[in-house]
């Protein structure tokens, strides 16, 4: 099975960026591409949810939500006391790695499609559910519960961030319109998905290349963490998915989610709520190390883990 071309576009961006090419994707185009991806993922999920009864999903959703709150609590102490990062930075990294990366999820979806492996309809819903909790926990870890008056404002910003709004909106519209209603939207949102993802990854490569510099400075600890963190986190997701009775594809994607690190929702929220944390630290780890690691090495591994679990689990 040859490597997926969308990943080659990431490589192209990475190489062009490292070689200091003048290739640029205008911010407006980056916004368009991410908007399309978020709506597509939401719509796809919504259409699927329309097919299956929602009630059955509720307990699973609760479980996923719980995982979202627990993961950062597992990551934080390691960062704080093993890797010896400062409190703010540890909390920030915990929030980033507890939350999820939409682009990694999209690559995972493409990876499964490539292999004609289906996945459970509720995964996009889980994507939404996993995005927020870790950020809240991370902020609490940094600030403590003590006198922080602006929680309302903060939650508002997190819950109404672009990615959440478009994902939830897409889910709702897909669910309300159903398969037939969404059909006329498919040429833009479904047929172009792979191509849009390719362009998006091209830009991601350029951005990741921009992190290389910072990487050279921060150096080893970040790389080590960025490479070692995903596997155990993904393993937790895989086991949870399997325990919930998700399909192989669903189990894989849940592992992809828990194993991925946020670089959109988390950075924005943490920057506002924990300004003393060094943003380039978490961004470099999630974008410069973990994202490439996941799309090259991680996803295939998580897929085999999912298969193994289902075989062993019988």
């Amino acid at each position, binding site marked *: 099975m040859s490597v997926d071309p969308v990943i080659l576009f990431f490589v192209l961006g990475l190489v062009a960026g490292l070689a200091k090419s003048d290739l640029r*994707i205008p911010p407006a185009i*980056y916004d368009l591409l991410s908007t399309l991806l978020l709506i597509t993922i939401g719509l796809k999920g919504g259409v699927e949810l329309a097919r299956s009864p929602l009630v059955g999903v509720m307990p699973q959703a609760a479980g996923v939500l719980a995982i979202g709150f627990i993961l950062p609590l597992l990551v934080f102490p390691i960062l704080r006391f093993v890797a010896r990062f400062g409190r703010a930075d540890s909390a920030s990294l915990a929030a980033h790695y507890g939350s999820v990366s939409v682009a990694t999820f999209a690559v995972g979806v493409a990876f499964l499609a490539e292999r004609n492996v289906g996945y459970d309809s509720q995964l996009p819903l889980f994507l939404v559910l996993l995005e927020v909790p870790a950020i809240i926990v991370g902020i609490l870890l940094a600030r403590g519960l003590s006198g922080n008056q602006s929680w309302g404002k903060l939650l508002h910003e997190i819950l109404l961030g672009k990615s959440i709004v478009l994902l939830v909106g897409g889910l709702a519209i897909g669910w309300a319109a159903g398969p037939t209603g969404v059909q006329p939207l498919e040429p833009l949102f479904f047929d172009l998905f792979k191509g849009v993802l390719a362009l998006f990854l091209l830009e991601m490569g350029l951005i990741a290349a921009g992190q290389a510099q*910072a990487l050279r400075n921060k150096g080893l600890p970040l790389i080590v963490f960025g490479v070692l963190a995903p596997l155990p986190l993904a393993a937790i997701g895989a086991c949870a998915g399997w325990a919930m009775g998700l399909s192989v594809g669903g189990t894989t994607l849940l592992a992809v989610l828990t194993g991925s690190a946020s670089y959109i929702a988390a*950075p924005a929220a943490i920057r506002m709520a924990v300004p003393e944390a060094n943003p380039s630290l978490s961004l470099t780890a999630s974008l410069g190390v973990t994202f490439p690691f996941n799309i090259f090495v991680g996803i295939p591994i998580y897929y085999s883990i999912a298969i193994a679990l289902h075989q062993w689990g019988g």
Partner: protein
Amino acid sequence: MPDDSRKLITIVTEAILEVELCEHLEKLGATGYTVTNARGSGHRGIRDAGWSSSSNVRIEVVCNEVVAQRIATSLRDNYYNNYAMILFEGDVRVLRPEKF
């Protein structure tokens, strides 16, 4: 004729602060503000606008000396330590001084 000399405060900082900062400026007494997208480099490294979290905004406020002082002090105390930010102040003459 009224005195038409005012201060022009220019702030260059992280795009993510735009909304919060603009509300803050009006609280401090600014009658308005002008924002443009920007990129640049400084003590916190290159910020090249590739995407929102790495881009800057350039905010201008025309105001009287008192408000200018208030803004400078408030930003230094609340943002300067943790965010990529510079602030400088110049002297300008305005049309319709009563507006500012």
